[in-house]
């Protein structure tokens, strides 16, 4: 009887892990496939049947990405735009989020929410017309400003809930002691929400880094970012699969690593704080 229930429990655990592996296998496999393809020489990358575990490891794909394409420039462009978008978003967004949380400015919050719902392409048509007439297509300024459409709402919305958790008594006490609102914001509230700032900065960086729609129209030869570069590479039919996979890995690896630092806040950022984890 006792032995029977122990066996049952063991079978239950084994069944659970079998199901867990089954559910998570597709997730892991796509990344595994991307990585292994990027390390295979062309003959093996397009071999059929494909090799899953045993293959010749080569860095030829990565070498080709950097020698045949201006990949260093693309990476630099992505870095400049994502960093610029995040910094500007924080400078402008943090005081706004503080103010919405402290003085309950709901109307501003609703505008931010609607901005999240509007399709990006509805912004793109006017932006394209303006930047074209200002001759600003293919400039960092155009890219940073448009990426803010994605970055700023996330920063503001997620930070509102962080600022709401700052005890109001603390701010009131400081005000009575003669501290200004700017002092309360800078010296009391901001240090308390530092983890939130780090998380939203990462979120905004990731969303800007991944952005395709705005950049595909507004980036040109000199400001082309990584997602656009990959799209341009795919149109050459004769290209090496190892090279394509290497490019895909190089683009997505930095955001994957950075995002792991903000794991806890990613769902909050994606759902606009509707679900707190």
């Amino acid at each position: 009887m006792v032995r029977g229930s122990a066996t049952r429990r063991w079978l239950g655990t084994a069944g659970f892990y079998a199901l867990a592996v089954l559910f998570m296998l597709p997730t892991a496999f796509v990344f595994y496939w991307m990585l292994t393809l990027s390390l295979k020489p062309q003959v093996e990358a397009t071999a059929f049947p494909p090799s899953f575990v045993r293959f010749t490891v080569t860095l030829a794909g990565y070498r080709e990405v950097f020698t045949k394409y201006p990949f260093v420039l693309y990476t630099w462009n992505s870095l400049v735009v994502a960093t610029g978008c995040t910094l500007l978003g924080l400078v402008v967004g943090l005081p706004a989020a503080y103010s919405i949380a402290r003085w309950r400015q709901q109307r501003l919050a609703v505008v931010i929410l609607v901005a999240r719902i509007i399709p990006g392409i509805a912004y793109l048509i006017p932006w394209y017309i303006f930047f074209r007439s200002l001759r600003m297509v293919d400039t960092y300024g155009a890219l940073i400003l448009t990426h803010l459409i994605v970055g700023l709402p996330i920063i503001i919305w997620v930070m509102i809930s962080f600022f709401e958790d700052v005890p109001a008594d603390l701010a009131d006490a400081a005000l009575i002691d003669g501290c200004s609102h700017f002092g309360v914001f800078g010296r009391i509230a901001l240090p308390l929400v530092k983890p939130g700032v780090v998380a939203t900065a990462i979120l905004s960086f990731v969303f800007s880094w991944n952005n395709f729609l705005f950049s595909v129209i507004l980036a040109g030869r000199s400001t082309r970012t990584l997602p656009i570069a990959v799209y341009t590479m795919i149109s050459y039919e004769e290209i090496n699969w190892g090279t394509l996979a290497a490019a895909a890995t190089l683009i997505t690896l930095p955001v994957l690593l950075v995002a792991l630092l903000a794991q806890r806040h990613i769902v909050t950022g994606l759902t606009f704080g509707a679900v707190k984890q």
Partner: protein
Amino acid sequence: MRSSFTHRHAPWLFPAPAVALVAVIIVYPIAYTGWMSLHEWFASSLARPRFIGLGNYARILLGDPRFREAVVRTIYFTVLAVAAETVLGVAMALLFNREFWGRGLLRTLAILPMVATPTAIALVFVMMYHPTLGVANYLLTVVGLSGFRWTYSSQTALYAIAVVDVWQWTPLIMLIALAGLASLPREPYEAAHLDGASTWQAFWHITLPLLRPTIVVAILFRAIDALKTFDVIFVMTQGGPANATETINLLLFNQAFSYFNMGYASSMAVALFALVMGASLILIKARRTAAW
């Protein structure tokens, strides 16, 4: 020392830069798109925009079968992908809602597809979907099925792209549902257990009703984004083959940036916004009634 002016006006000085920025980068472009949708204008020509009232809307709603097909396709794609994500995501949440070794690893693994660069992922799927050399068809033959032509055939392309969406976003629903499950009260289960309810009955009569508002929020956020899917479709098929994956976003992108038909494209953008807004309102209402 504090200056009394800035102190008194802090409630609007703090958000002022953000309000100015939002006005310039968000409100103004939207108003412009609305205004442009009442005009006929090709950005490639030197002619000035011509005011035609609701002419563009009459054309997309009555005279353009391609737009109507794109609307149906967009809704079909969204319903298909989000339904699959919801069923899978909730099932996974129920499975993983317990203490087990490797929980942290699971969470990390679930985060990765959501933050991975969509164009890079699309590129990997393009290679996996290759009809003769791709690993997808190889795996199908291993389990005894015949291969598909995936994104290379107009019959399967939309489904193949939905698979990518499901791969990327099922974890989001799972994580939201897990958070919802973690906040459920314990008492109803204890009472049900005492009354001799089965696990299935407890799930159907307690878990599901209590979890419903959470699931609706998850569906809401997924539906908003699925209706606007662009990157993956654009990289993988550009709307083809034979328009089989041409959603509103793809059609309107081509109208705007291949034909420079800005007025017409703007009216489609407004229509897409109306569709997303309408879906959001229906789901928000569903959440209210679900909360009883």
